[in-house]
């Protein structure tokens, strides 16, 4: 069966510090991968998605970047964190290349980031 991991679970970082959040998926090959952010009291916002190694699409301009160095690894980074980067970050995966809007996305446990 497939499993998705995220770490760390919680993180407290000062403004201006760098960030690296990691997501890995087990039990599937070449998944589509997604990063979402959930700010307090709001729904989820799609930040990035990837359909393959080195292929990243950005949904919104921001202080963050994403990379996919391996097939089942997805990393969210920042060079200098802002207060507005605080939130709950969720990684998700879906079946690759099925070409259907009905595909289910499966979510990881999330990372709670607090920027002080």
């Amino acid at each position, binding site marked *: 069966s497939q499993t998705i991991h995220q770490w760390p679970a919680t993180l407290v970082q000062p403004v201006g510090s760098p960030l690296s959040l990691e997501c890995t998926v087990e039990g599937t090959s070449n998944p*589509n991968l*997604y990063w979402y952010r959930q700010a307090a*009291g*709001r*729904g*989820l*916002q*799609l930040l990035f*998605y*990837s*359909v393959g190694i080195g*292929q990243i*699409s950005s*949904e919104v301009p921001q202080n963050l970047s994403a990379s996919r160095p391996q097939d089942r690894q997805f990393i969210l980074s920042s060079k200098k964190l802002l207060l507005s980067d605080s939130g*709950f970050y*969720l990684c*998700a995966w*879906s079946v690759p290349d099925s*070409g*259907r*809007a*009905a*595909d*289910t*996305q*499966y*979510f*990881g*446990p*999330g990372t*709670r980031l607090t920027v002080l």
Partner: protein
Amino acid sequence: AQSVTQLDSHVSVSEGTPVLLRCNYSSSYSPSLFWYVQHPNKGLQLLLKYTSAATLVKGINGFEAEFKKSETSFHLTKPSAHMSDAAEYFCVVSEYTGGGNKLTFGTGTQLKVEL
């Protein structure tokens, strides 16, 4: 562009009474719709999804939702609430972008279940 509106930010019910969480959607073509549940500080779990087959969709934990095209609604219901149902619920519409499917989330409904 697609969008989702969850009509209630908070819903409170007594244990054993019915649950109704309301959702309206907007989509330029036949949508795929989902309901996810999120318990505090946890990831999202899929409850059910509509994919243009049966309009009444049954999900996990006794939840179901009915797709009504004429009303552009996809309300989530459960006949009898349990304490463990207390969580936040998200209605989601999906479109295929050519590079994975893009989900648009509602702002969520917080369900409180009281004794």
